[in-house]
């Protein structure tokens, strides 16, 4: 566990999701020099006086990541009473994460509530606020333990745990020959250890690459439009595109029998897929298309099942997809039911349950009205989608943080490991190689939890006959 009041910390200060702006906060004695090191206007920033804003680009060696404003605070005139920089960038979660990740190479991620904590410790907050701060810290930790987060972490955690185990095994080889050199233990096979370390190194590299490409929020939420032919899937699809700007262009080059577009719904990236109509057919080509649709539906985060007044009864009777928990059932073409505009939820409820309009659904499935002919035609649908995908902000930011923190940890471990391999080829002392390995494991254990010396000694004593 790392803990002190003087090292430099960083974190994204604005809520997650796509927004106009996002702010990353960096605080500590090296805040200004660290940000300068990844900033195009290095000198301007390092020489900036307090409260001065500097315009420029965040750069990763040659690549420009984002155009930003850096607001400089000089100690003690800042929230934490330390040197601080607030980087205002575009509100794209991916860019934001990349900047944070660059920073985390040189400083550490702030613990929950740590900026406030420092503000308090540095006498920036008055006494009355003390309890509030500690409450805040506790509250934040509780949220960090939410199970949704743990599920997301699950797979990565397992892989990291395995790598930690492998690295610890290698370290044990060195520790054995240091601490128990006067014992009759098998000689350390440097070649074998090197080979194992290289394997771990490659695994970490792969994890890192995958992590960079496949972040949860970058992938967005996949929503499939499904339903019988001619219920109006494509017009609903187009209506969505008209009203919501596409934030990413479709992936080019893949031949497919469905359309896919990126939308931004209330700041959340959503991939909307218009699938082939579902029906029984003997046409071989169409059969393949329908199979593909089924696959898409099963892998999507959500399905919108579209039906219309003509097919509703049949669908309710025959189609099991409607009853799936991740399906929203939408009745399109409500303009045909003598409405002048999209019915509000009260009128719709009465319409569906009452005999007033002579139409009674046979099931308890919630059916939402929709029409591309009305101005507000797809609003009810849109609200339903947002309601289902939106996570509480705290949870969302945890996910973001977790991902970025993990990537930073993996990257640090990769660096330590490459130092270890270099040390081996330089014939460095075993204690130095062990030092690199300890550092690598310590970075990785930020993801999984610490490995203590006692854990390692337990393994030594249970696996090797030690002692004269």
């Amino acid at each position: 566990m790392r803990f002190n009041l003087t090292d430099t910390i960083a974190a994204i200060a604005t809520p997650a999701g796509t927004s106009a702006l996002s702010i990353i906060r960096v605080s500590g004695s090296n805040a200004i020099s660290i940000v300068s090191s990844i900033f195009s206007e290095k000198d301007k920033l390092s020489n900036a006086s307090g409260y001065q804003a500097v315009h420029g680009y965040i750069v990763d060696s040659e690549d420009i990541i984002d155009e930003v404003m850096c607001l400089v605070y000089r100690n003690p005139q800042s929230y934490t009473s330390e040197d601080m920089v607030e980087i205002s960038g575009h509100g794209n979660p991916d860019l934001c994460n990349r900047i944070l990740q660059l920073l985390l190479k040189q400083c550490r991620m702030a613990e929950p509530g740590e900026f406030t904590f420092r503000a308090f410790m540095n006498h920036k907050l008055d006494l009355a606020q003390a309890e509030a701060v500690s409450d805040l810290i506790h509250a934040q930790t509780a949220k960090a333990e939410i199970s949704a987060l743990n599920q997301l972490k699950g797979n990565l955690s397992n892989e990291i745990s395995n790598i930690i185990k492998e690295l610890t095994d290698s370290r044990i080889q060195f520790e054995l020959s240091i601490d128990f050199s006067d014992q009759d233990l098998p000689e350390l096979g440097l070649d074998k250890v090197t080979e194992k370390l290289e394997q771990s190194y490659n695994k970490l590299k792969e994890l890192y690459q995958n992590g960079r490409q496949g972040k949860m929020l970058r992938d967005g939420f996949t929503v499939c439009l499904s339903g019988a032919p001619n219920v109006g899937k494509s017009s609903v699809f187009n209506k969505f595109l008209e009203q919501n700007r596409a934030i990413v262009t479709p992936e080019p080059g893949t031949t497919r029998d469905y359309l896919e577009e990126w939308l931004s719904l209330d700041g959340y990236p959503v991939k909307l897929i218009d699938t082939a109509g579902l029906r029984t057919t003997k046409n071989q080509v169409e059969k393949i298309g329908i199979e593909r649709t089924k696959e898409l539906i099963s892998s999507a985060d959500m399905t919108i099942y579209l039906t219309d007044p003509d097919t509703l009864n049949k669908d309710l009777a025959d189609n099991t997809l409607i009853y799936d928990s991740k399906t929203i059932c939408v009745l399109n073409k409500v303009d045909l039911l003598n409405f002048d505009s999209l019915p509000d939820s009260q009128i719709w409820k009465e319409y569906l349950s009452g005999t007033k309009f002579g139409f009674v659904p046979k099931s308890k499935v919630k059916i939402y009205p929709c029409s591309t002919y009305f101005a507000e035609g797809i609003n009810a649908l849109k609200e339903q989608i947002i309601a289902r995908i939106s996570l509480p902000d705290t949870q969302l930011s945890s996910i973001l943080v977790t991902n970025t923190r993990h990537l930073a940890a993996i990257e640090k471990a990769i660096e330590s490991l490459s130092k270890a391999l270099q040390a081996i080829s330089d014939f460095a002392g075993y204690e130095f190689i062990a030092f690199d390995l300890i550092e690598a494991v310590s970075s990785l254990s930020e993801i999984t939890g610490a490995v203590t010396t006692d854990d390692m000694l337990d393994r030594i004593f249970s696996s090797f006959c030690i002692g004269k």
Partner: protein
Amino acid sequence: MNASQFDVLVIGAGHAGVEAALASARMGAKTAVFVIKMESIGRMSCNPSVGGPAKGHLAREIDALGGEIGFVSDLTGIHYRMLNKKKGPAVWAPRAQNDRQLYSLIMREHLELQSNLHIIEANISDIIIEDNTVKGVVTSLGKSYFGQKVIVASGTFLNGLIHVGAVSFPGGRSGEPAATGLSESLIKAGLKLNRFKTGTPPRVDLRTLNYNLLETQPGDENPSGFSFYRYVTLKNLVSCLISNTTPETHRIIQNNIKLSSLYGGYIKGIGPRYCPSIEDKIVKFPDKETHHIFIEPEGTKTHEGYVNGISTSLPPIIQEAIVHSIPGLENAEIMRYGYAIEYDYVEPEEILPTMETKKIKGLYLAGQINGTSGYEEAAAQGIMAGINAVLCLDNKDPFILTRSEAYIGVLIDDLVTKGTNEPYRMFTSRAEYRLWLRQDNADERMMPLGYKLGLVSDVRWQKFQAMLAIKEREKQRFKLENCKATKDMPEPVKFAALLKRPEITIDDLSRFGYEKPADLTTDIATRIELEIKYEGYLKRQVEELERFASAEKIKIPDELDFMQINTIAWEAREKLARIKPHSIGQAMRIPGVNYTDAAALMIWLRKYSSNKKETQIEDKE
């Protein structure tokens, strides 16, 4: 003057006791040390050896601080090896075989020659405590001695119970009585006691060995010892001998396993995993076909040899069979039989980092009584207890070494923060700052502290200063001067840059035009080489160390009532209240105390200190 009145009373004159007594007397306190048998002062009850990985580091640190173990070891060594010579410079580990008898004699002499120090042969049976404050001790003969500070360094003697097969009898070690009564006294004082076990192997008459079948292990050509203050030349006087167990050995043990005290169910104490009996090795690692045996001569005036590797509690007849199954020992005659010993120890969470007990003022515990094993571990606690007892007498700040300063700090911090489930032994892997805590720079780390405490004489201090000056001077030269151009080095570079190359050692530099000054000793040259070669690593280590130090600097007041801080999780509060950490850094090392607990604690501390300030202001008004 009252003959029974002292400042500091030390119970026991083993490796912890002698250091405690010497440090106390040297710092000016009138000190008495009690020993059950005068002849066993500084007795090496296990193998006659000092040092090895981590233990050698401890011995060097104690020496630099002004302790005795390294100095006496150098005066009595008969076989020297620097371990890990091929592994890496930060973990080189000096190890010596000592003349057991001579070590005791010289240690006794040093104690006798020490002013302010009184040696008294007595078995202490009670500690006088009034109002949770220690007042003195009572001997088994009924005489009382009084002092404000009592340091208990009773080793394995507390209710010691020796086991050989089904036989068991009270004893402190081979041939000496146990200390009874003292345990009851400690329990009465409210301390929590528990039981550990350790053991020794049989010892044989070296004249009865067949040397043709034994491999010889000579000492190093250029022996290196422990003491920075050494004035004698070290010489290897004996060689160790190596053999191994055979399938016959294993068969004998397997067939008779139930006859051992350990497997016969006679022992309840927990033994160390890193120092198992031969029974344990055979049972727990049945696939290992053979185990090494090291035969270590016990001295130059005796033919006794310590058979390292077959610690056992089997009955004498089986011990003989085991010894005879080992190549070279077929006709060996056993002079002393091996045994297991169970003894009381006090759970180390009862003590503070000063070695003083939390419950009884003025009562200090040092050495094996705190659940450790090993001479060096004991000596380290001894010197720290002695120093802190006197500092407290003088109303001065306590002397606490952190994990980043010394192995001594790692040892004591581990004990008081985490406790131990088996006899605690030091390993280099326990030290997070291993690259900095080296044996070569123990003087640079410890001597200034020892000098300040009055444990290092001016003469020794001057010598150290001179060494530092030479080191600094040559290091600067390496950084500033260019080497000569040679065939494989057409462009001259700084000597330091040259030395950073993996294939170049400091001895190679003469080929590149480095003129080695006469005052640059091998020791200094080695330090410079290490510091330059591994500069990058050392820098990284120092960065870590600074991070560590900041949490260590945030002190927690002694009187703090952790239970009232309701922003800390209940479980963590209980642990904090029990351990009573002295800094935020230590608090966070307590298993079960996490970041948020520490943060809540810090917030509370700040509030607490501001409240105090406000109170003070009110007082003025």
